[in-house]
């Protein structure tokens, strides 16, 4: 007869924790720890000439969008076209082609009411794509924009699986003639960047919102959700808005009105 399995001792676990802390915080000399040496690694001469603050990602900002589905016209794809042009996407719709924004039509089964809306990366506050990324390539910027760092993306497509909004695409083929502001290439996952290159250069809106306004619909409103004085903050305060799949508690930065 075998002995009943012993329960793991929590005392041992405690000891391991203390030991790890002791090793991690080894004092090399009074006041100097290993980690500090790593942090103080020689700065690159002449680097960082751009003034921080003016253009850098600001943690006080939460960029987001409000999509008014009542204003969004069925059949209009100006936002999709504008996104393709802005970011140098092919705009073709084979199953393997990248797509950052798409138009959907949703129908309430009970009433038959049909709404049209664009869907893109929802720029979640708790992005599952970031949680699952094995290399840290998928990340959330300080101002709430969820991006892929293509330099560390290995193309495993775990984030594509994790995203409940189907917002990420994988680039299957060689890319040529990229936009200088939007480098992209084969073997990486990509998705809506909220036109981060435009925002960093001080442009107040995204390509899709601009195109929608130009088409006369004005269904997409882009802005800083944290700035109480901004148009988007005022609108979400005044009207009822919903987040897609709010039950997942991902707190998307893109909100919808009228669905």
């Amino acid at each position: 007869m075998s002995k009943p399995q012993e329960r793991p001792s929590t005392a041992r676990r405690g000891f391991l924790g203390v030991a790890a802390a002791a090793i991690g915080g080894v004092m090399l000399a009074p006041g100097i720890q290993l980690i500090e040496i790593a942090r103080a690694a020689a700065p690159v001469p002449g680097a960082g000439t751009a003034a921080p603050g003016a253009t850098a990602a600001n943690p006080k900002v939460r960029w987001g969008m409000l999509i008014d589905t009542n204003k969004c016209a069925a059949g209009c794809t100006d936002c999709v076209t504008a996104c393709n042009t802005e970011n140098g996407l092919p705009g073709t719709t084979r199953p393997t082609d990248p797509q950052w924004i798409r138009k959907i039509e949703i129908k309430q089964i009970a009433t038959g009411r049909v709404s049209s809306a664009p869907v893109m990366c929802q720029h979640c506050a708790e992005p599952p794509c970031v949680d699952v990324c094995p290399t840290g390539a998928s990340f959330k910027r300080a101002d709430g924009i969820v991006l892929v760092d293509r330099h560390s993306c290995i193309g495993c497509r775990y984030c594509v699986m994790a995203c409940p909004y189907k917002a990420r695409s994988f680039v299957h083929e060689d890319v040529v003639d990229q936009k200088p502001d939007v480098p992209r290439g084969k073997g990486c996952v990509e998705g809506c960047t909220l036109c981060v290159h435009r925002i960093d250069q001080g442009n107040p809106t995204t390509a899709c919102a601009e195109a929608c306004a130009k088409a006369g619909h004005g269904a997409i409103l882009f802005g800083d959700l944290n700035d109480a004085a901004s148009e988007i903050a005022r609108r979400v305060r005044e009207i009822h808005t919903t987040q897609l799949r709010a039950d997942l508690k991902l707190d998307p930065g893109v909100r919808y009105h009228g669905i």
Partner: protein
Amino acid sequence: MRRIVLAIGLLLVGAVFAADDAGRTPRPVVERAAPGTSCLADPAFMRRNHMDLLKHQRDETVHGGVRGSGHSLKACIDCHASQKTRSVAKAETNFCVSCHSYVAVKIDCFECHTSQPRAVALQGVPK
């Protein structure tokens, strides 16, 4: 033992002389930058450190949103693109490729980044 040391010494001397022989290995032809421009640092520093500057700036830009720095790849390309091909990587003699093929270091930059200056890459594209 002494003989072995001597042999190794001779080999080393031979290697040094071979490397010094200027005519035996082709030198990279570095195309001149656009006239009227000057680099952020002197060529000797840039040759040795450009990759560190670029990598540092790359992380600043992608994660921090700091754009418009002189250390960005775009800034390099703007001055160093060949007058003929309007690129830094299209022909064997273009700025990046000429040195990198000489030292046999593969560059992946241009699999994602355009190798043409902003003015050229955006030409004819409706805004």
